[in-house]
């Protein structure tokens, strides 16, 4: 192959560095890799902001009747913490990881709709800024404004004009609505890319599990986000046009909001965990030196979870007073979704079994993920036992459960992904030493924070309380929990230090620092703008394994 001249490249390099040109190239980019990095960076910044909020929440709750913040501020803190983490950290991480990795993994040049991709990013960012603008802009009656304080699921009729004066709730509605458009758009892009742009030979059955999981995720997004949008539009009509969707005085139903919200909200939490599933399914095989155990079962399990997750939503509403038959139905569906989820855990375990495990930082995070996700799933099964849920819903037990799934599983999975793919994206290795500090501090901090919260729920502590009286038996557990939060903060600082240090003086990563098997490791680190010089062609789900082991290729067994 003759070398090709790229005159434009040369001339840009020959010219002096121009800040405006550099900024413009990022602002106007439609390259999936740049957009992916922009999504991830924005998500990390929002994560740090919401994390600080969590620190303040735990500082307020460290002792009873504390005065770190008053009730109004506290209520805004937990609302913004939850809303930010779900919509401005979780969703952009999904978009960022999908957009960065899918074209590389399927041997494509870019996403199916690059300009739509850019639109999705910028509208997500605009929605996030709109939400945060509430701190400055939302001043209403008697100064009743500032950030929203209605909880991240904003139950009606608390959100109606009568009970939420000022405009803070409107910022919640509009910020999320606008950001949600970005999520839907990104998901359509992922589906179109995956179906229409796979390289030659990459039948659906040969797609990396990462891509499978993120495609099912995208399907869930396009079906689950609209109910939230619909509910929010209805709420907006109630607040601005005097409509009566949730106006109980006119015969409206508060429970209807809950149904609409959770029809979105339950699939949403599966949508959030899928990137962690996707990452673990890629990282565990590589660091166990074996293919994923039961590939087809893994695909089937993730599709099953996708479907069943749309039928369990009212398990968030067991205490609402639904008829017994409804409660039984939703309990059944919730138990059933645990079966394919368990299958995934068992398959990861079986992948590790009989392997030759290398405990690099990505693998450490994956192993902790499996332990913690197992616990999260089991507390979820407990909550699916409706009578048990009658006691524990809206208590700190649920707070513990969903932080186990989100912090203990999603966040650990995301850190595994960052440690695994950072070298590919930047060409630099993150430090293993700092990585291990990050990991162990996070494990200790995470468990100290959230394990005691299960006990708090059992002892009757409700959630979303800005303070509590002494003598309820809650003091020691709250104190331990708050200390754990501080340790988690130190862990995150280690992570931030690791990233900054690596960007400045990290060790050079080659094309394939982990000895992995999927297509992205065949190109340079970082990949060139066009990803692949020639269109790849694959014959199995581990094309790089086939190349490295011509005597024992995968396509003989698949």
């Amino acid at each position, binding site marked *: 192959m003759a070398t090709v001249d790229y005159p434009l490249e040369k001339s840009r390099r020959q010219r002096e560095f121009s800040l405006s040109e550099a900024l413009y190239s990022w602002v106007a980019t439609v390259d999936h890799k740049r957009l992916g990095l922009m999504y991830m960076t924005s998500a990390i910044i929002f994560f740090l902001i919401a994390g600080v909020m969590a620190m303040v929440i735990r500082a307020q709750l460290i002792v009873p009747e504390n005065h770190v913040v008053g009730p109004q501020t506290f209520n805004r803190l937990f609302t913004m913490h939850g809303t930010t983490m779900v919509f401005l950290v979780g969703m952009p991480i999904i978009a960022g990881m999908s957009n960065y990795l899918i074209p590389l993994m399927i041997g494509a040049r870019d996403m199916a709709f690059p300009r739509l991709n850019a639109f999705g990013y910028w509208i997500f960012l605009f929605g996030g800024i709109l939400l945060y603008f509430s701190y400055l802009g939302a001043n209403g009656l008697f100064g009743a404004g500032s950030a929203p304080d209605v909880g991240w699921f904003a139950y009606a009729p608390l959100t109606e004009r009568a009970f939420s004066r000022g405009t803070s709730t409107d910022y919640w509605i509009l910020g999320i609505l606008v950001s949600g458009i970005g999520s839907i758009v990104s998901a359509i892009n992922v589906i179109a890319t995956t179906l229409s742009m796979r390289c030659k030979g990459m039948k659906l059955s040969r797609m990396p599990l990462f891509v499978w999981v993120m495609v099912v995720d995208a399907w869930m997004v396009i079906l689950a986000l609209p109910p939230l949008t619909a509910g929010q539009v209805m709420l907006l009509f109630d607040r601005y046009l005097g409509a*009566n969707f949730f106006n109980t005085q006119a*015969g409206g139903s508060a429970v209807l909001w809950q149904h609409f919200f959770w029809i979105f909200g339950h699939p949403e939490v599966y949508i959030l965990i899928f990137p962690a599933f996707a990452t673990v399914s890629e990282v565990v095989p590589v660091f166990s030196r074996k293919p994923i155990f039961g590939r087809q079962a893994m695909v089937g399990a993730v599709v099953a979870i996708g479907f069943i997750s749309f039928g369990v939503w009212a398990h968030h509403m067991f205490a609402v007073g639904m008829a017994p038959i409804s409660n039984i139905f939703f309990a059944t569906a919730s138990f059933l979704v645990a079966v394919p989820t368990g299958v995934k855990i068992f398959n990861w375990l079986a992948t590790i079994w009989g392997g030759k495990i290398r405990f690099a930082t990505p693998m450490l995070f994956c192993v902790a993920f499996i332990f913690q996700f197992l616990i999260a799933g089991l507390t979820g099964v407990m909550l699916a036992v409706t009578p048990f849920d009658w006691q524990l819903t809206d208590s700190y037990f649920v707070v513990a459960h969903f932080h186990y799934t989100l912090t203990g599983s999603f966040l650990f999975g995301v850190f595994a992904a960052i440690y695994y793919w950072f070298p590919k994206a930047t060409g630099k290795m993150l430090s293993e030493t700092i990585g291990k500090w990050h990991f162990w501090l996070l494990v200790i901090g995470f468990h100290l924070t959230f394990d005691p919260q299960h006990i708090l729920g059992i002892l009757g502590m409700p959630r979303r309380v800005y303070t509590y009286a002494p003598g309820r038996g809650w003091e020691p557990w709250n104190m331990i929990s708050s200390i754990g939060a501080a340790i988690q903060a130190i862990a995150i600082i280690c992570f931030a230090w690791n990233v900054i240090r690596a960007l400045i003086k990290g060790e050079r990563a080659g094309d394939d620092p982990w000895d992995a098997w999927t297509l992205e490791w065949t190109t340079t680190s970082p990949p060139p703008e066009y990803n692949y010089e020639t269109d790849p062609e694959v014959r199995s789900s581990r094309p790089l394994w086939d190349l490295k082991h011509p005597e024992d290729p995968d396509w003989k067994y698949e």
Partner: protein
Amino acid sequence: MASSATQLVETEWKLPDRGTVGIISLILTEISLFSIFVIAYLFYIGKSLTGPFPKDVLEFPVLATICLLSSSGTIVFAEHALKHRKMAMFKMWWAVTIVLGLVFLYETGVEWHDLIYDKHLTIATNVFGSTFYSLVGLHATHVIVGMTFLLIVFIVTMRGFPIHTQIRRVTFLSWYWHFVDAVWVVVFTVVYIVGR
């Protein structure tokens, strides 16, 4: 599938067109959106505490329905003409489609004017008003968006753009239009038949 070493590569590698996948995904997400408004409408049937009630004020929109549903037919004729490069026929059928859509919107506007000013039903009057205007309004908004694109196609064609090079995109637009019509079938069934 375990293939022998001689059968290396599939001879033909065909994947679905990305635009097709894109427009189908968009239609699916819109179906999800409409479903919630339909469910809200059905849920709230009979739950208004005060009037006016559906049977008092609603009349079946015959002309609007005929126009909108026939526009699905005329758009098919237009596409057919375009495929066979009969540009005059295409422009004619396309224009008819637009006119039918405009009649639909006009009739909806007349109905709403009557409901608001004569029958005193607004979105704030009662639960029926809220669900009626939001569901029918959501549909009408989608009609307006569709009309906008239909008009763009018409205008650029009239000004000489070679629209036959964009049959693929015109087809996607027609699918969107069929979708809007199908939603109308659901909406008028729920609002004017079931809900009355």
